[in-house]
């Protein structure tokens, strides 16, 4: 039986950001999205390394856009969440939910 795939915390965050950004998910926008939503600075190198790792694992799929007028002519590298990525998100999310189960009330009381 294949082991269910789990995402690490930052992988989880990055995959969610890509999913949310849809067709506009590339390096700069993903970092901005993460920083805006999580409210903390995201290291550039950590973000790119995670994106490449997720791509290697088959959870994200990269796509090169056409050459750009700006960016010194360098095209954007867009990412999209693959079916495997969605499955891993679901598995990890559900695992987290199950872990969270009952804690919200506890934390609020505490």
């Amino acid at each position, binding site marked *: 039986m294949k082991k269910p795939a789990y995402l690490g915390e930052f992988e989880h965050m990055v995959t969610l950001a890509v999913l949310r950004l849809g067709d506009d998910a590339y390096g700069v926008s993903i970092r901005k999205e993460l920083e805006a939503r999580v409210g903390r600075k995201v290291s550039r*190198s950590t973000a790119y390394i995670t994106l*490449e790792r997720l791509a290697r694992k088959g959870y994200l799929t990269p796509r090169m856009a056409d050459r750009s007028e700006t960016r010194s002519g360098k095209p954007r590298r867009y990412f999209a969440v693959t079916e495997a990525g969605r499955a891993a998100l679901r598995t990890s999310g559900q695992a987290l939910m199950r872990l969270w189960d009952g804690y919200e009330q506890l934390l609020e009381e505490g």
Partner: protein
Amino acid sequence: MTELHGDGPPRLAEWLLRVTVRDTAASDGILGDLMEEHEANREGSGTGTRARLWLWLAILGLSARFLFLPRAEVPHRTSPSAVASRSRSNPIEVFTQSLRHAMRGFKRNLGFTLSVVAVLGLGIGANTTIFGAVDRLLISPPQHVRDADDLRLVHIRSRESTGEMRVSPGISWPGYHDLLAVGGFDDVAAYSRLGLEVTVGEGDAAHKATMAWHSTNFFEVLGVQPAIGRFSSDAEWTGRGVSMPVLSYEYWQRRYGGDPEVLGRSLTLASMGGDLSTHTIIGVAPPGFTGVELAPVDIWFTSISPRTAAEGPLASRRSRTSRAVARLAPGVTDEAASAEATARHLAGYAEEIAQNRYDEDSEVVLVPLVAARGPNPTAEAQVLRWAAGVSFAVLLIACFNVINLLLTRSIARQRETTVRLALGVGRHRLVCERLIESTLFTAMGAGAALLVAWTVGESVHRFLLPDVAFSGLDVGGRLLAFTLLLTLAAGLVTGILPTAMSVRGNIADGLRRGDGASTRPGSKTRTALLVGQAALSVVLLVGAGLFVRSLRAAEQLDLGFDARRVAVVQPEWKREVSASERQEALDRALEGVRRLPGVHSTAPASFIPLLSGARIRPLAIPGSDSLPPYPGGGPWVFRVGSEFFEAMGLAILRGRGFERSDDAEGARPVTVLSQSMARAIWPNAEAVGSCLLVGSSEEGVQCTEVVGVVEDHHLRYLVEDGPHLMYYLNHTHPARDAYSFLGDPSTRFVVGTTGDPRDVLDLIRAETASASPGVGFINVQVLSDRLERQFRSWMLGAALLTGLGLLALVVAGWGLYSVLAFDMALRHRELGVRSALGASTGSLVGLVLRRALVLTAGGVVAGLAASLAAAGLVEPLLFRISAADPATYAIVTITLLFVSVVTGVVPAFRATRVDPNKALQVE
């Protein structure tokens, strides 16, 4: 340099990202993102520089992160299994992973890393520093000389009148002309011995400088270019006396602060006779240029042209004051050129050979510039050989020490190694890791070594070879190559043994043994290394002790006079000052200086021991045919003032010394004899009151009464054949006018001081200057300074061996400590058991100290044996002390044993603190 050209990304940055990210699409995407942020930054901040700085920092940060990313994280479209298999087979991959592994290890054990690097840094540093001097003296061609391989120094090998064959660089001017006619030479330049002294300037501004003269084609033959200005050319040569001085770069910096306006300025020189001449400076030589030899030269003078005719004083073939350097014509061999030059040389000397005044078998020897310094067993070469040997011994000690440390660590890491082997990591991979680790250690050590060489190298060179010009430490290719070679060798030497020990052995055994600390593999090797370190330290310290004792013996040697309490004053008079004016000025100076505080006597002297020696002059003794031959030679004559013996600290043994009344007009001529002379002439009678016949029959022989006998003293050197025959004439002895050999006492006088003469040197100079307005330059020095060169070999030996010997002792002591400490850690359980069984603190301390003493004693015995074996080699270098000096050996032995006890104290203390309960629980 890579620029941010327009809006495009820097090409270097693009390349850097491609190489480190290792995926073109990914790196292009990242670079595009960075450029997008960069454009936004530039619009936001408005300053391009800050935005560019930001971009570069971002690129470098990203590149560094990707570079050190584990292989599995690198964005490659390959499966993990393929990555693993590649990592096993790809040597570059193995290398980078091993490198990362080693770097992590260094960071984890920073203290260990630093100590290994320090030990290697000192060991390699000592060798690198010494190599700088060896390279300058024995390997490098002279600096700035074009095609130095084609240049040859011209030497003449001929038989002396004593029958001895001698190779000399001296060439006569006609002999130089002979060489000019040799077709095998492109050109030949003449030059003088380097380091001649000249007085520059006049009055208070006068100072001494070193000079050399040369022919007009000298710089052209050497192919040297000036730093600024120009060199002389033969075309502008108009006759003798034109000197066109060129300053050395160092003198230009020192005296003129590197002012380019120095060109065209005039330079005033005072010759020995007091003549002043003025010359216009035409150029400055490049830094470090010393011609074809090594002695520093301040000013180069063009004093002759190859066209200058061999006539007048230059016509003599016997006066060989020039030296010659020739450039071989293309395609001409040394043999051919030498044969042709020899033929020309012998033809030139045909007349002398016919009269049997010159050796018909003389030949011209062509010596390559570098080799010219080697075969002569100069003091410098001797010292360098010593220094190289000693520094190599220090490197050996350092390597032994590092091997020991690495061995100790490999034992500590045994379990890690065994587990990794069990997990399938190949032995070759482990070997690679360990070797890389030890090479990295030595590489860092090499960095420290270069730092050592760079900071102290120049001072060490000046200390070792004060007569050689060094212009800063030249960290050139050869020095770096040597350091690299030494580093690789040390890396292999220190790596192989610990590596072999760490990866051998049975995995199952290793795992069964648990923490691996219950056994002590390699303990014999470590003991042997420790004994080796101690033995080498003993050899170095014995050497140091012998040289220190030699130096002390030399310093305490009774020369007869006390050179440390005598100052010598040598005024150089201008030519226009008459002899009577000089005499008056000198009398005033003698009186003035005598009144200075700390001065007890002053006396003029024709010659001064150690400084100017004396002259041999035959004399007659009434009733005797000749003087008996004497081992020390003589008789040497001095003409001195009345306070000479007091000033020099020479004791009058019988009779009296000179008195002022002896120099009064009409007084009888008197003499004082040295003890040996008195004994040689009148072995059975009293010399005082006898008569000595001074002078020759033509001039009228003077009966000079012997009024006293003074103690024997040395004449020139620390080591002399035996006591000399010496006699002293009073200052106004009638022989002074008849015999110019007696010298001119108005050129120098001695000053006897009660304390260190250095305290009053300035006062003496000022007093002499105020008394003698006609003086050009006053040279004042302490007589003992003349001995410095003679002391040098022992001083160098003592300093080198003491410094490096103590260093070796510290390293070896520390090695002993680490081994003891580690042993005690391994024997933790045993100590616990002993303690539980009631072992006393004393017995536990004794256990540790005994081990320390046994290890050291082994090293001491081996070291003493080695020292005794080498005694024959060292003996000739020592001064009045045996190379098997028992006192030195005893002191070194006690020192080593003391150090071993000191290093054993901390481990012994730890041994007494072992808690038996905890020690037994661990198991």
